[in-house]
C-alpha cells in the first residue's frame, strides 16, 4: 500500500467514481497491490519479507504486510 503520507491520486479517482455510483459515506480510497505467491513449505517468513521488501514493494513509498495461508 502507498504510505499514508504519499498522495494517491488513483485512489482519489476511485473515490470520485464511487460518488458517481450514488454511494455516500466513503471518506477515502487508497489503491495498492496484492500478490499471491505459491511457495514451498521450506520458504520461511523471513524470505517472504525479503521478497516483499526487495522486489514486490518499494519501501520508499509503500508499506506491506505478509500473510501466509494454506
Amino acid at each position, binding site marked *: 500500500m*502507498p504510505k499514508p503520507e*504519499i*498522495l494517491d*491520486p*488513483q485512489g482519489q*479517482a476511485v473515490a470520485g467514481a464511487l460518488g458517481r455510483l450514488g454511494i455516500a459515506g466513503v471518506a477515502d480510497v487508497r489503491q495498492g497491490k496484492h500478490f499471491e505467491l505459491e511457495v514451498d513449505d521450506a520458504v520461511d517468513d523471513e524470505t517472504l519479507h525479503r521478497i516483499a521488501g526487495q*522486489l*514486490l514493494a*518499494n519501501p*520508499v*513509498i509503500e508499506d506491506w504486510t505478509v500473510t501466509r495461508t494454506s
Partner: protein
Amino acid sequence: MTRIGVITFPGSLDDVDAARAVRLAGGESVALWHGEHDLRGVDAVIVPGGFSYGDYLRAGAIASLAPIMSEVLAAARGGMPVLGICNGFQILCEAGLLPGALVRNAGLHFLCRDQRLVVESTASTWTSGYSAGAEIVIPIKHAEGRYVADADTLARLEGEGRVLFRYAGENPNGSLSGIAGIGSADGRVVGLMPHPEHAVESLTGPGTDGLAVFSSVLAAAAAA
C-alpha cells in the same frame, strides 16, 4: 574520443535519441544491452527513457535488477558518471543509486509538453555546462514523474545543493518542491524526468537547451 554507453532494455524508447545527442555533443555513443554484464569500457552511462519491461510491477523496478545494472551500480560506486532520463531516473531510484521515488502524476494524466525548468545547480558532472539559475526549455513526457522522498532526504538534497533541475512556473506533476532532477552526493549520478535528448536540435525539438547535459559530461571526461 569519450565513449558514452546507452543502455537498451526491452521497452526502451529513447535510447536512439540519447545516442544521437551524445554524438551531436561530440562524443562517441556505445550501445549497451540490458541482458549483458558488459559496459564495453565506456567512460559514462546513460539509462534512457521508455517503458522498460513494460513498467510491470513499478516503473523501473524490474529494469533495476537487469544484468547490466549490476555493472552500472558497481561502476557508479567507483565514480563513473551515470545519467538516468525519465524511465532511467525511475530505474536509478529503484536501484538505490539515487534517493526517493517517482510516482503517478498528481493529476493522473500522461503529460507531453515543452517544459520550462530552472537549472538549480551546476555542481554536477551532467550540469556543469549550464549557468546556475538559467531557465531552459526541455520536453517532458511521463505519467509517473512526481518525485517523492521523506523529509530528511528532501532536506539533505536541498541543503547539499543536489536539486539540479526544478520545474519553472506551475508544477506539472505535483513533484515534491517542484523537483525535476537530482544528483548524487558526488554529483556524478544524475536523474531527471525531462528529456534533454529531445532538445538538442531546433529542427526536432523546442531548441537546443538539452545539449549542455551531454557536453557537460564530455567536458568532465576530457578534464579527467
